[in-house]
């Protein structure tokens, strides 16, 4: 969690408050304490004032931005001074320019759209199949017996190793890429959702049954919400896997997409375009991760989580 959102937590659990709490009390009892203070020179303020105010003047998002910005500035400096050859690695300014040029011709948009479409289609199929299998295996013992063992066996096959087989099955069009992403994302979704369903506290299920909750509502009100946190962990893994598989699949037998763009650039030693594509992959990864965080914040607002200090 990057920011402390008030609606997530009741005020008395915001770490900020914990830290600030001693201040007014110390101020209120300041007078009666004063004469004794001399007698207790060996005692210290529980939370020194300097530490209490710590870190809250600069907004969190700005502090988080500092690191990446420093990294970029350093990279630009190394390139401008000639320490790093542009054939080895293009400077950030060159990468930006390549991006601008490709955007002008519309190439960038075409390739980006192609990649996005493959990734999301594959992800949608993978998530759907993964969730359905997890629900079957999670809710029914016969489902577990049939589904779980099969999935566990198939899971040990490296997804990218399926590439030649997928090409034979689906040819070299869009299907093999979508299929690979779907297969690669299905497993993390299945494994996490299944674990989530099986991890729901048996006592809560027993309680719900005691209060007359029927089978369907038991699934809807107890099992599904209980499995959501673990499902979201799976979704995060799945999204990372989707981009990883895309980048490999698109470099083989593709006529469009970011991977194709990179492969073409390699032929012409255009490190600026290669870096551009990598940056875009990074941004896409970041964007999808933020999306899952947003989902977590909306769906898991009932949790009180450790947010760091």
């Amino acid at each position: 969690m990057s920011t402390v959102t008030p609606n997530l937590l009741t005020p008395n659990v915001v770490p900020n408050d914990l830290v600030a709490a001693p201040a007014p009390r110390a101020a209120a009892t300041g007078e009666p304490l004063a004469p004794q203070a001399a007698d207790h020179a060996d005692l210290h303020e529980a939370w020194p004032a300097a530490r209490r105010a710590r870190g809250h003047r600069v907004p969190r998002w700005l502090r988080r931005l500092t690191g990446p910005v420093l990294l970029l500035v350093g990279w630009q400096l190394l390139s401008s001074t000639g320490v790093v050859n542009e054939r080895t690695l293009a400077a950030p300014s060159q990468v930006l320019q390549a991006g601008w040029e490709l955007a002008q011709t519309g190439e960038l948009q075409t390739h980006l759209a192609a990649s996005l479409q493959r990734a999301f289609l594959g992800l949608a199929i993978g998530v759907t199949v993964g969730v359905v299998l997890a629900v079957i295996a999670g809710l029914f013992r016969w489902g577990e017996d049939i589904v779980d063992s099969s999935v566990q066996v198939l899971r040990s096959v490296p997804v990218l190793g399926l590439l030649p087989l997928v090409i034979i099955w689906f040819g070299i069009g869009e299907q093999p890429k979508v299929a690979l992403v779907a297969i690669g994302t299905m497993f993390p979704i299945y494994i996490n959702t299944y674990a989530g369903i099986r991890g729901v506290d048996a006592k809560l299920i027993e309680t719900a049954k005691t209060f007359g909750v029927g089978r369907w509502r038991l699934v809807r009100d107890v099992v599904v919400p209980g499995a959501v946190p673990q499902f979201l962990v799976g979704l995060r893994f799945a999204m990372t896997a989707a981009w990883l598989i895309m980048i490999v699949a698109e470099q083989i037998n593709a006529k469009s997409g970011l991977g194709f763009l990179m492969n073409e650039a390699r032929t012409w030693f255009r490190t600026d375009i290669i870096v551009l594509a990598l940056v875009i992959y990074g941004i896409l990864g970041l964007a999808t991760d933020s999306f899952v965080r947003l989902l977590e914040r909306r769906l898991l607002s009932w949790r009180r989580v450790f947010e760091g200090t």
Partner: protein
Amino acid sequence: MSAVIARGVGRSFDGREIFSDIDLDIDRNEFVALLGRSGTGKSTLLRALGGLDSEYDGSVLVPDARSVVFQEPRLLPWRRVRANVQLGLPRNARTQQRADEALAEVGLSGHADAWPVTLSGGEAQRVALARALVREPELLLLDEPFGALDALTRLKMHGLLRQLCRRHQPAVLLVTHDVDEAIVLADRVLVLDGGRFRCDRRIELDHPRDRTDPAFAALRGDLLEALGVDAVAI
């Protein structure tokens, strides 16, 4: 008029017999406390009465309208307090109003929209009590409901429970290992030991019951003896 009629009830786990051939009657509006050392099968008997366990021998007749409060609050963490009280009821304006009334009865009106994680142990257990009472049970089963609470909170909960039972008049079976709690609350105290009821005592003291009353102390001594604890040694 009986709320519970149990005849010849027995239960064993993997051939190990916990109790056998137990008879138990609880009248309507009667408050029965079931005492026993840990492992004597108090909770096992309660689970049989609550329909939480089907593997018992003998016959158990109980009303359909029954509720359980467990040692832990067992609230669904992803549903707000009001929705937890409504658990198992159709979600409409009428049950919502009943849930709000039940929360008011346990003194938690202001917490209806709170998440369970924000409640203290005592508050969460009061929500569990509201959840049990909102369906107007004819039989209320309490499985060491105050066992995890601190001493002060427990005293307050005793008062609240008495008050709620007076108003709703369910038959109550309270499983506890706290002798004082049993004497303060119950109309009748049973001691389960060695697979049978070692003691069945009606308590005639007036409410509110005074722990310093000599009659209270005498009862405590008797019950501790039935539990196999030497009263002088404490």
